[in-house]
Structure formats: structure tokens, C-alpha cells
């Protein structure tokens, strides 16, 4: 995934930050166990958010234990022990990573093809193990592939509506977030997934706009705004203003859903931090041309 869905660390309490980091580490370990050690490369902030939301909605209480790992050999770090929510997130992550790689293989040209070609065998292995785990509902991979092929078709047709393309990506993420859930929890998970997917898609579009323009690739903002999209090779103030106004409105259903989360769950404050503060902060950085925020840039290091 892309790493746009992250907390605003300066506003987290120390305990909340520790728990967030523990979920991040726990997801990494679950990935290693379920879909193979190499699958840990698919770990992202987005999937950590996904895991935290799933734990809250399914009422899974995380247990934190200090663990030493190859990435942090010197000091034991608090890590969430494997649980059903982390395991499903690891399986979903493997499928999404595989689909994204297939997408890169389809769209890549020249040297850009090298990475997806090298990753293809690993992705196949990850996906097979994820499906074999039996944690995903039948037809899950096909459902995600269906949404993504709809997205590819819209992009190839040069769709000028960023709401339409972002909406399709949001549908794919809604399906991923709610995989295996039922009833109200599934409904809430779809709200989180849909909004997070739209957010990620639009941030990615804004981030890639100058590069896509130079390379002559499709970009939803470029297709909609035409010559007004860029100003001196950077995002034009008009595009910046429009996204500053539109994205928070788009996130509102997720903001409401975050308000409905179980207040007693230990991960609820982190999820609310991400939804209410983290995403607007990422949007500001992306629109200023700084990217999602390099690790450690905010002075607090990576999780």
C-alpha cells in the first residue's frame, strides 16, 4: 500500500503511541508467520490502521508482549501478540500486494517493470499462502481484482472525474476492510475502508501529478483540471485549495464512524488520532509537495 494513513504522532499520548507501534510490529510478525518472512515487505501504515480498526470493530483485545526481532535486535519492543484480526489483515495485505504487483506489471514500461517482475514469484507465494490459510472469504481475491480492473478501465478511458476513480478504489478498500465481517461491524468497516481508499487514491494522485505530467501518464487530477492542474511544475494553488476543501468532506462519514467506536478499546484513541488529525496532516504535506512524510521527519521516528 502507500503509507498515507498514519497518525499525527505529536498529538498521541506516549501509551497510545506505544500501542500503535505494537500493532505495527505485531502485524509484521503475523505476516511473517502466515504468508512467509519475505511478505513482511508489504507492511505499511495503511495496513496497521486496517488492523487497529478491525480489532476494535471485532472486539478483539490485543495483548502486548516485549519481543526482540531482526529489525530491532538490541532492545525488546512491545508487540501485539497474534490474534484473528491481525491474521486476517496479514492475509488481506498479501492479496492486495499481489494485485498491486499485477497492476504494476500491466502498466509498467522499461526499467519500471524490473521491480514487479522480480516480485512476481514472491507475490504468488504470498497469495497462495493467504488463500490456503482459510481466513479470507471465498472469492475475495476475485472481488478485489474486479474492482481494480474497473479502475484500470476508467483510467485507460481517461476518466476526468477524480471522485469516480477514487470511488472505485474506495470500493476495493471497503471490500478489503470488511472481509469476513458481518452485520454492523461490516457496515462500519466498509465506511472506514471506502473513505481510506478514496483518501489514499487522491493523495497518491496529488503526489504523482508532476511526475505523471512529465511521463505523459494518466492522472485523475490532470484529466480533470487540464492545463490548470500545474503551476510552474508544481500543484497549482487551485488544485490545492479544491482538495483542501473536498477531502475533509469526503472523510466526514469516517469521522462519524470513528466517533461511534468503542471508547473503552485501547486502540480507539489511536484510530481517532489517525482519522481526525493524521489524515489532514498527511494531506497538508502532500499538497505542499513534501510527500506523505518521511520517517522521523516529525521528530518522533518511525513506529
Amino acid at each position, binding site marked *: 500500500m502507500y503509507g498515507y494513513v498514519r497518525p499525527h504522532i505529536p*498529538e498521541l499520548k506516549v501509551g497510545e503511541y506505544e500501542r500503535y507501534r505494537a500493532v505495527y510490529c505485531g502485524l509484521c510478525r503475523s505476516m511473517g508467520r502466515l504468508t512467509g518472512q519475505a511478505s513482511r515487505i508489504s507492511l505499511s501504515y495503511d495496513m496497521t490502521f486496517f488492523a487497529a480498526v478491525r480489532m476494535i470493530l471485532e472486539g478483539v483485545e490485543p495483548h502486548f508482549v516485549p519481543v526482540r526481532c531482526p529489525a530491532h535486535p538490541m532492545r525488546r519492543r512491545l508487540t501485539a501478540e497474534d490474534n484473528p484480526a491481525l491474521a486476517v489483515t496479514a492475509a488481506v495485505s498479501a492479496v492486495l500486494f499481489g494485485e498491486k504487483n499485477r497492476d504494476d506489471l500491466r502498466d509498467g514500461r522499461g526499467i519500471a517493470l524490473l521491480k514487479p517482475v522480480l516480485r512476481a514469484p514472491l507475490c504468488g507465494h504470498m497469495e497462495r499462502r493467504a488463500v490456503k490459510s482459510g481466513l479470507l472469504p471465498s472469492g475475495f481475491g476475485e472481488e478485489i481484482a474486479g474492482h481494480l480492473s474497473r479502475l484500470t478501465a476508467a483510467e485507460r478511458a481517461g476518466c476526468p*472525474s*477524480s*471522485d*469516480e476513480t*477514487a470511488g472505485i478504489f474506495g470500493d476495493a478498500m471497503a471490500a478489503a476492510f470488511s472481509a469476513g465481517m458481518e452485520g454492523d461491524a461490516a457496515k462500519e468497516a466498509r465506511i472506514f475502508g471506502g473513505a481510506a481508499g478514496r483518501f489514499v487514491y*487522491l493523495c497518491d494522485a496529488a503526489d504523482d501529478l508532476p511526475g505523471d505530467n512529465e511521463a505523459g501518464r494518466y492522472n485523475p487530477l490532470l484529466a*480533470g*483540471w*487540464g*492545463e*490548470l492542474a500545474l503551476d510552474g511544475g508544481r500543484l497549482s494553488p*487551485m*488544485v490545492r*485549495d*479544491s*482538495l*483542501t*476543501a*473536498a*477531502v*475533509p*468532506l*469526503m*472523510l*466526514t462519514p469516517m*469521522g462519524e464512524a*470513528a*466517533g461511534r467506536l468503542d*471508547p473503552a478499546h485501547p486502540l480507539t*484513541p489511536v484510530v*481517532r*488520532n489517525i482519522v*481526525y*488529525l493524521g489524515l*489532514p496532516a498527511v494531506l497538508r504535506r502532500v499538497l505542499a509537495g513534501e510527500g506523505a512524510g518521511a520517517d522521523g521527519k516529525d521528530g518522533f521516528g518511525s513506529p
Partner: protein
Amino acid sequence: MKDPYQVLGVPRSASDEEVKKAWRDLARKYHPDNYAGSAQAAGYEEIMKEINEAYDAIQKERAAGNRGGAESSPGYSSYTSSGTTSFPEVRRLINEGNYDKARFIIESTPASDRGAEWHFLMGWLLYQSGQYADAARHFEVACYLDPTNAEYRNARAGMQSQAADYGSAYRTVGTSGEDCLSGDICGLCSTLVCCDSCCECMGGDLIRCC
């Protein structure tokens, strides 16, 4: 009357696009809305009037054939003068809540007639259907094509102020568990004392010993 070219600060040889850009820049800078409430607002209204008159004069002069020049803004059609309504039927349908029909008329408008008002109405319809990114784009383009129109500016400002409220729930939702009833023991005690005082005022007594 002053030379309109001098007012806009462009040479006589400037293309239509350059004239329009100069007018837009000046209109953005001197629009009275930017100075609302200040003592200079009236002065800026005068300046704005002068700028608009100069632009209109150049437009008329060029339209009369003194100097030809085609619009060169691919993708966006030309300026629609403020105050004139080109889509009364669409506005009526929107007021009646008949968004589908309004959308149909707007979408079937030929590209050549899609001026500032078209973008504003399209933005309004998209906003109603929750397509915020496209709505914001159309509002921005409407303001770009006609920076002096208060209706378009208000629509854009409305979306911006709604967006600015996002995240304010963090404080209220995030601290809801720390209200007087579930917070620390001091909060609980002061709540009981308050309740007791209220009861006593009404003739009752919640806590007998105090």
C-alpha cells in the same frame, strides 16, 4: 476616461488572453470582499469598478473589430459576465430539488457554452450528490473564470469553511470519557455537591450530611 490598457497595465499589443489574465489578477487583488469591514473598502470598490470598466471597454473595442483575437484557453470556455443568468431553467430545477433533470441539462450543454456559471451549477449539482472533489474543482474553475462573482466565491468559501470544521471532533470525542461523571474523584465530588445544591434550592436534599 482613463486609457483602459493603462488601467489594466497591459500594452495595446497584448493578446486577449493577456488582457484577461491582467484583469483577473487585478480583480483578485482589489476585490472589495477582501477588505470587507475595513475603512478602505469603499476605495477598493471604486478601483474595482474602474478595472471592470476598463476590461469591458477593451472587450467592446475588440469585438467591434478594431483588433481581432480569438480566445486561447483550451478546455475552458470564455468569461460569462457576472449578473447574467444563462441557465434559468437549471436554477429553477435545482430550487425545486429536481437534480436529475438539472444534471441532464447541464451535462448536455455544448462545450462552447460552458462558462463560469456552467461550472458553478455543475459544482453545485456534484456537491449535492456528494462528489466533493469534482464539486470543488468546478467551484474553483467558476471563480477562476469570473473572480468578481460573489455567488461563486460564496459557494467555494462555504465548502472551505465546512472542511475547516473537520477534525474538531477529536477534542470532543476524544475527551468524552473524561466528563464529570466518569473522570477523577474530584470531578465526581464536585458534581455531587452541585447536584445537592440544586436539590436544596428546589426544597429537597440529595446528601443529608451537607
